[in-house]
């Protein structure tokens, strides 16, 4: 029943109290009592706010390690699996006749990986994110079974020797390229944006914590100056202890905060920034492979695919150069160098393939495209893809280890801040209480 006491107090009583307080405020015990009270309050409040700030930072680091980091991996995985599934299903048409078992297994693995990862990505979101109009996850969940159905219809027709199968495969591929892959790309973009946001949250300079610590310190110094002037005693053990506790707390928070800043910035430099470029390179690789295959499937009517290949391939070259320049780890750099060499080998194989196709040697072109010879386009593509995958895995583990380091730097900081805040409050209270007792 808040305010009931105030309402019951008469005006005269209230006036007397106020005047009493004002008179008390002017006396030394009054000033000291005021200081003691505000020091205890401010120390506890500052401790709570600092602890909250550290907690938020720890939460952001935790999100990076357990949520946004893995989800960006999931989004990339979804894109990659879908794209590979389409390239594989389309490529199966080129081999003609009985579908090779390895091709079928690769397609099935891609679909399983895409659906499983999609379920994880969906589970990590709130229902409202999924029901929102234009949600990438909703579209992916709705259209992936449709895609798989079309591919199976195409296979069934193919197994009966009907050209109709190719039409179903084209429809499936159109669905993949116009609806599923753009949505997967949207998803990847939003997940990587979340990683950046979490990195910004975790790696910000601890300015609030610094100001709070300085305020408490300032109050403690002021209290000691006042105490010295009013009582002429230089040292007060309680206040000195409180000052020391505040200093330790401030230093602890600053050191851990700056350590986290360093780790997060390293997680960007050695991890996520490189992963972004490498993932884009891998996506471009898959897109170029799909273009290469579709050009042959379309058989003369595929100029649009070839034009797209040229564009994507150029982009891929640029991405590999950027990735090479950004690499901070010798192992990753070696992988990127291998990727560049494999890209060059692929470009050569693609040239041979196009030349064969354009001069009417369709069978020769198909052999270069899907054959297992060391200089075939398929071999170069597989090597390039695995180089990029390994480089991505290595940079991702660099990201994870830096984020883990950031998490370790914050271990126990909240508890320390809480204990030291209580010590500060207790020290300040006890120190001033001793002097107040002198006035009894």
């Amino acid at each position, binding site marked *: *029943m*808040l*305010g*009931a006491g*105030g*309402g019951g107090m008469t005006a005269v009583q209230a006036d007397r109290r106020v005047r009493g307080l004002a008179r008390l405020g002017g006396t030394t015990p009054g000033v000291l009592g005021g200081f003691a009270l505000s020091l205890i309050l401010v120390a506890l409040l500052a401790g709570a706010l600092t602890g909250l700030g550290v907690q938020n930072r720890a939460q952001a680091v935790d999100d990076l390690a357990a949520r946004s980091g893995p989800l960006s991996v999931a989004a990339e995985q979804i894109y990659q699996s879908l794209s590979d599934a389409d390239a594989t299903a389309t490529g199966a*048409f*080129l*081999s*003609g*006749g009985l579908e090779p078992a390895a091709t079928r297994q690769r397609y099935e693995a891609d679909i399983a990986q895409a659906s499983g990862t999609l379920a994880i990505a969906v589970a990590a979101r709130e*229902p*409202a994110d999924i*029901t929102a109009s234009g949600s990438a996850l*909703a579209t992916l969940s*709705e*259209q992936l079974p*449709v*895609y798989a159905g*079309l591919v199976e219809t195409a296979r069934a*027709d*193919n197994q009966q*020797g*009907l*050209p*109709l*199968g*190719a*039409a*179903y495969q*084209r*429809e*499936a*591929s*159109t*669905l993949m390229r*116009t*609806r599923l892959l753009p949505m997967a790309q949207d998803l990847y973009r939003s997940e990587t944006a979340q990683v950046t946001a979490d990195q910004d949250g975790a790696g910000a300079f601890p300015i609030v914590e610094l100001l709070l610590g300085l305020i408490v310190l300032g109050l403690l110094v002021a209290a000691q100056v006042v105490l010295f002037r009013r009582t002429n005693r230089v040292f007060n053990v309680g206040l000195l202890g409180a000052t020391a506790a505040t200093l330790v707390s401030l230093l602890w928070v600053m050191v851990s905060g700056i350590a986290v800043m360093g780790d997060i910035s390293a997680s960007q430099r050695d991890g996520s920034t490189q992963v972004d470029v490498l993932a884009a390179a891998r996506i471009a690789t898959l897109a170029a492979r799909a273009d290469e295959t579709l050009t042959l499937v*379309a*058989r*003369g*009517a595929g100029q649009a695919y070839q034009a797209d290949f040229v564009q994507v391939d150029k982009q891929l070259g640029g991405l590999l150069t950027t990735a090479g320049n950004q690499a901070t780890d010798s192992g990753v750099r070696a992988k990127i160098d291998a990727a560049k060499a494999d890209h060059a080998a692929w470009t050569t194989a693609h040239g041979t393939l196009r030349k064969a196709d354009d*001069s*009417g040697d*369709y069978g020769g072109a*198909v052999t270069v495209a899907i054959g297992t010879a060391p200089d075939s386009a398929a071999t170069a593509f597989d090597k390039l893809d695995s180089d990029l995958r390994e480089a991505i895995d290595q940079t991702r583990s660099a990201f994870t280890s830096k984020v883990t380091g950031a998490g370790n730097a914050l271990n126990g900081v909240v508890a320390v801040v809480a204990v030291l805040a209580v010590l500060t409050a207790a020290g300040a209270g006890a120190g001033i209480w001793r002097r107040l007792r002198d006035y009894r």
Partner: protein
Amino acid sequence: MSKRALAVLATVFVLSGCTSVATTVIPNVTAQVPVPGNASVAAVPTAAAGDQCANPLASLRPPNPLPAPGQMPAGSTMAKIVQRGKLIVGVDQNTFHMGFRDPSTGQIQGFDIDMARAVAQALFGDPNAVQLKVLTSDQRIPALQNGDVDIVVRTMTITCDRLKQVAFSAVYYDAKQRILVKQNSPIDGPDALAGKRVCATKGSTSLAAVAALPVKPVPVSVSDWTDCLVMLQQGQVDAVSTDDVILAGMTAQDQYTKIVGAPLADEPYGMAMPLQNQDFVRFVNGVLANIEAGGSWTASYQRWLGGLLPGAAPAPPTPQYRD
């Protein structure tokens, strides 16, 4: 006093546990059906029907005698092709038994391909000296005009309109435009198509003929003929209308379809060549006359179309020439 009232109110709220609960509404998700790439409800220019010319089916008279394989007159179009080593032919890979890709072998084959190989045989003495380039219906004329292909043998109807852009051989196959529907469809002819969605390929005469029907069907255009069958199977169109021989290829792939109604139009097929290559047109007409007289036309018909179309093999079309 208002302070006390507020306090009482606050207490009541806290005690009654009055919190707002956000509920998740599960939306009704509507199916988004997949469509073949490039499929669209077509706004077709119907002007094509208005074009008239003398006798579109009369092609250039063949030389007598026909040059022997590998011995083409110097400077002729044929000599250039022979020098290159391959005849580049624009074909289809989606039309069952006319030009289609056998999924088991990956080879393109069919009646049209046999005709193209006969031309290669006459040029090189080798029916395999062909490079097959797959074209969609609407790519045929541009491919010829750009010189990407020497000849198009792809279920191409001779029309006055097209004669302004390309040259045609004599008729090598007489097709009729008809209608394909599902077995249980009530549609029994062109008159029943009012307001129905009817599929045909972009740039085909069939699409223009559908659009020109007085009952006003909704023409839907796609890239390849098999895309029409996909849309029919998926219930996205009510009928497919094109040449009987193409439709017969569809019924062979889906036994739950049937060809109905009277023919909408005659579709005489010719091989198309660039307008300026008149010597090549004459040469091809000579080849056609030979294979029609020599029985290989009938053999090809029986191999590819005999099982698809009812009745015995018809006589090859009688060529009409002008000088």
